């Protein structure tokens, strides 16, 4: 009887959701970062990130709800907080982040639509909603900064919890490492930045130079951090228990070897880093300005996104194949 045959109970819908949650978290975060670091200079990044942020996650959540055996009962998640369950904490985090990202989205819309957000003239108007007035430009700026600041920890939470969700499962040794939360967070930030960069690359304006510089530098830094996380992950996993080191076989000769080394490492990290390094080299080393190519920007961004999805695909599938090694009857 094939009880121990591999069944994938979590499938592409879950990998897709983890990917889109990362993009949304990263896009929101980089938008807020751009606002605080650059203000007017990086305004277009802030706008792209803000307008983008709610949508990938919404798609991902729809996929997630679809995956449940009782999709219409998904709201039962919100009848309780199970403190020991990363999924319970995560669903509350996601709700908060989602709502905030929609508010942020409206704040960055042009004039007529932005007026959806209104304030009362005075306290006496609190109950008469239709007398409220739209925000004036300085208030909009303040509101954007406040929402970005409040949302930043939520964005980090969303990026990190997708890793904690997997990492909390000792039964799957590939997941149960202290590295997975950080790795997913860095990958989330990187995917978000890459999506913003991709959109910026598709836009024709010449005035996006300093913004492209910011995005390319930030993304290159994130890629380097990811590489610095993957190396110890491999080292420690190999030098760990039989179950842990055995789980690495899945990506070192096993069925997910190509997806990992080709998709995650080569296409997702090394080639984009090379492209971005090539673009940044004259700026950093020789200190002269360079015209950021839309083509290379878009290419490297696209590859980072492929790698981001590949990371989640490999982890979701290979993780389900990894198991405590049968140390039965001794």
């Amino acid at each position, binding site marked *: 009887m094939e*009880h121990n045959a591999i069944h994938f109970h979590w499938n592409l819908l879950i990998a897709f959701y983890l990917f889109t949650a990362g993009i949304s978290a990263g896009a929101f975060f980089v938008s807020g970062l751009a606002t605080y670091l650059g203000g007017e200079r990086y305004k277009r990044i802030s706008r792209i990130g803000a307008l983008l942020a709610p949508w990938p996650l919404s798609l991902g959540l729809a996929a997630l709800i679809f995956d449940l055996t009782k999709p219409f009962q998904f709201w039962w*998640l919100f009848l309780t907080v*199970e403190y020991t369950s990363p999924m319970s904490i995560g669903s509350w985090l996601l709700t908060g982040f989602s709502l905030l990202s929609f508010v942020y989205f409206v704040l960055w819309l042009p004039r007529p639509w932005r007026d959806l957000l209104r304030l009362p003239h005075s306290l006496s108007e609190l109950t008469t909603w239709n007398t409220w007035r739209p925000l004036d430009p300085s208030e909009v700026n303040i509101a954007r900064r406040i929402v970005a600041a409040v949302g930043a920890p939520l964005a980090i939470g969303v990026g990190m919890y997708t890793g904690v969700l997997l990492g909390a499962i000792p039964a*799957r040794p590939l997941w149960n490492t202290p590295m997975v939360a950080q790795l997913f967070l860095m990958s989330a930030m990187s995917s978000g930045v890459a999506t913003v960069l991709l959109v910026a690359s598709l836009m024709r304006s010449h005035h996006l130079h300093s913004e492209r510089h910011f995005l390319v530098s930030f993304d290159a830094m994130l890629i380097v951090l990811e590489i610095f996380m993957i190396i110890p992950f491999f080292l420690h996993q190999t030098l760990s228990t039989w179950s842990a080191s055995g789980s690495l076989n899945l990506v070192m000769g096993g069925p997910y070897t190509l997806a990992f080394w080709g998709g995650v490492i080569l296409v997702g990290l090394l080639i984009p880093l090379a492209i971005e390094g090539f673009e940044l080299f004259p700026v950093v080393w020789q200190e002269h300005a360079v015209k950021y190519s839309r083509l290379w920007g878009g290419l490297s961004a696209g590859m980072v996104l492929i790698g981001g999805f590949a990371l989640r695909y490999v982890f979701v599938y290979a993780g*389900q194949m990894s*198991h405590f090694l049968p140390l039965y009857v001794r």
Partner: protein
Amino acid sequence: MSDNNPTSRSRRWVFVMEPDRCINCEACMISCSLENEVPLGMHRNWINKIERGVFPDLSTTFLPENCQHCANPPCERVCPTGATYRREDGLVLIDYDKCIGCKYCMMACPYDARYVNEEKAAVDKCTFCVHRLDQGLPPACVETCVGNARHFGDLNDPNSEVSKLLATHETYRLYEEAGTEPAIYYIRS
């Protein structure tokens, strides 16, 4: 096995398996599936065949397994709606109404004891035949076992069969290093 006053003392229901007596007849699997209306293709219990050695020194051990009803259950820990819960007598049970089928518990179980029950639209598993226990009957698999390989009882009762077996035999449990504190003991050959 039964006690006329179920609240007289706290129980700890456990299995003590004798793998040497198991002949892989799978009668326990059939009786369980019938007793609990388990959907076709799913299993609440199963026999794990462990083959060891190199020809000509080969051996096979049959390990009867089901949900271990752990004292420290990883499934209960990760359930986001609280559908999986642990009873005082040690049984880990599922409230099928609360279960939304996220399958996180299925990821968390090191014993792969859970399955998706499409009819209930929830995750399901062995319940130690709780509906029979509450009536003073043993689980269906225990009653059916032709080789007397499955023993079941209250570990907190020093006079129970399982307590006596554990006192007189060397036993082991599966994946103890996972820290799950499983309730199924296996007698060493």
